[in-house]
């Protein structure tokens, strides 16, 4: 499913667009950066409540499709700027992480 479709279906607020045409293969959830470096696969979407600047570098280095911050967590403007500069999609959802994961899981499994 394309990133732009995921954004629409989950009602995400987009802070940085990234590549909306990119395919979201699967997703990974963690707030520990090294864990994401170890476990996330290229093409994964990353769901987290970690808002620190380094999430952009991690997403870039792992070739992730984008970052979704749950619970309405808003990153600092520098983080948004960095994401735009690096071409990383950065999105926000008001839903708690667990619900967001559940919805995305259904969606990517084709049962949305």
């Amino acid at each position, binding site marked *: 499913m394309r990133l732009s479709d995921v954004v629409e279906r989950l009602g995400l607020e987009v802070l940085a667009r990234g590549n909306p045409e990119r395919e979201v293969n699967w997703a990974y959830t963690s*707030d*520990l*950066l*090294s*864990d994401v*470096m*170890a476990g996330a696969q*290229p093409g994964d979407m990353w769901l987290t409540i*970690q808002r*620190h*600047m*380094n*999430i*952009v*570098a*991690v997403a*870039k*280095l*792992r*070739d992730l499709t984008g970052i979704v911050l749950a619970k309405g967590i808003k990153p600092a403007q*520098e983080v948004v700027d960095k994401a735009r500069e*690096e071409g990383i999609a950065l999105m926000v959802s008001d839903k708690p992480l667990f619900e967001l994961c559940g919805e995305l899981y259904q969606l990517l499994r084709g049962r949305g």
Partner: protein
Amino acid sequence: MDRQVFAYSVVSTGSFDDVGVVSTEIKRDLEEAGVEKDTVRRVAVICFEAEMNLALYTERGGNIQVVVEPDRVDIYVEDDGPGIEDVEKAMQPGYSTAPLWVHELGFGAGMGLPNMKENSDIFEIVSELGKGTKIHSVVFRRKEDAA
């Protein structure tokens, strides 16, 4: 070109805000050098964790050198202290000496060195307390993964 050498220095700023800048640069340089994606990703993980360690634990930062050869990529990481007290322990997944504030920023999972080893085909680490740490990592290039 048969062999390309890239050299970087990581500054220890006491802040995490710029961490990832060097490894992002390394990733870009290797992509421009025509290194296949899978290799770039593995090198990027190794360099990210190295950069993190240099920024987090050293007083003066350190150096990362990346040597691209037709069949392999060598990564050399070097700093002049403080050194790792128990390398064997530090290599165990989950072992961390990071303080709480580091954990809260999403670091200190105790996966830095294990991640580096996991992504390396050869991984060597030498550390001496008060002197510094040297790491040599090799990633063999697999042409079938060529981007």
